């Protein structure tokens, strides 16, 4: 009995000590981590609009400044709409959904007048590093600026994902990532769903 109490007491103390250690570090770093998340969000929106280039080296404060100067948010949370203040027909919306391994959150920006995609950027996902996670890479994302979404195909699809190397941008096609078929497919569905919802809200056929 005595031994059992000793064991339980020991584990209790250990848990409090080490849990406390983690909690303390967390408390110190929480604000910074939150700010990083906000900046990542702003950066994604600015990149989707093309205001920020992918390898732009600007720091956190400049990004926040640039965002507050250029973008207007309408609505809240995942239904939020982002409007480029200088050209209000250029708008961005969240891409939210389940990718292959877990939830995905990104941003897509379009030009309502030319019916072309302005760009795409990702905020959060848990796809495999080196495979599905390559959707973050410029090579994949650079397919989107200038891509038309005007035509609605027979199954309601606007942007089609096809085997790597065979995409025809005139046909509104995008190259999948080799070795990341499921992630590519999941992303295609997410884009389709969010783009459709956005266009409906914007009053487009």
């Amino acid at each position, binding site marked *: 009995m005595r031994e059992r109490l000793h064991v339980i007491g020991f*584990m209790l103390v250990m848990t409090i000590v080490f849990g406390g250690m*983690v909690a303390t570090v967390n408390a110190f770093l929480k604000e910074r981590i939150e700010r990083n998340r906000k900046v990542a969000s702003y950066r994604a929106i600015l990149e989707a609009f093309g205001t920020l280039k992918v390898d732009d080296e600007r720091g956190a404060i400049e990004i926040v400044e640039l965002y507050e100067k250029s973008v207007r948010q309408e609505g809240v949370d995942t239904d939020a709409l982002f409007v480029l203040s200088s050209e209000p027909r250029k708008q961005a919306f969240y891409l939210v959904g389940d990718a292959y391994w877990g939830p995905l959150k990104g941003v897509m920006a379009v030009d309502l007048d030319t019916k072309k995609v302005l760009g795409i950027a990702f905020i959060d996902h848990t796809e495999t*590093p080196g495979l599905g996670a390559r959707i973050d890479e410029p090579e994949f994302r650079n397919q989107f600026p200038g891509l038309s979404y005007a035509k609605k195909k027979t199954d309601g699809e606007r942007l089609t994902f096809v085997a790597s190397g065979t995409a025809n941008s005139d046909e509104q096609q995008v190259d999948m990532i*080799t070795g990341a078929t499921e992630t590519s497919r999941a992303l295609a569905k997410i884009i389709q769903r969010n783009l459709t919802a956005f266009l409906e809200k914007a009053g487009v056929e």
Partner: protein
Amino acid sequence: MSAPMTGRKAFLQMLWSDNPVFCQILGICSALAVTNRVVNTLVMGLGLIFATALGTLTVSLLRDITPRRVRMMTQILIIAAYVIIVKLFLDAFLPDISKQLGAYVGLIITNCIIMGRCEAFAAQNKPWPSFLDGAGAGIGYTLVLLVIALVREPLGMGTLCNVPIMPAWWTPWNLMIIAPGGFFMLATLVWIIRSRGAAAPGARAS
């Protein structure tokens, strides 16, 4: 039981004759997953060195008061605390790399190397040698992973530390980016090292 291991000897053994990756074949899944980029490998390695060294140090400091029945629970608790702290620091100061490493930083908790060193060495030895043993294991792991990454990133992505280094006509080898490429590289490395006479598991005198 043979003579107690000195810290220096333990450290050096971890680098070569008892290397956790190519001798003990531990920590393989992260070895395959993060080595397609050198920078990620370096960050992952540093995180693991930190967690392992401090983990073994702490386990050793507590070895006389830890009840035998909860030995492993305690080790996991300690390791998890340090790894979470690593993750918090990465999220705070290197958010882009943290995102790229994804789940693998958290998975350091389950990395066999750390538990292995805690259980096989730190639980029976003094703090300073245990610290050196843990640090050595982490460094041995990192060095092996760096060698693999130094091949996988240039061949698979055409870059080194995200700087393009391959000539324009080079077509990247996709195989090197995905896990099987990591498998092949690791197996090749183990083969080369073993044929040079490096120790097989069990060669280390306990």
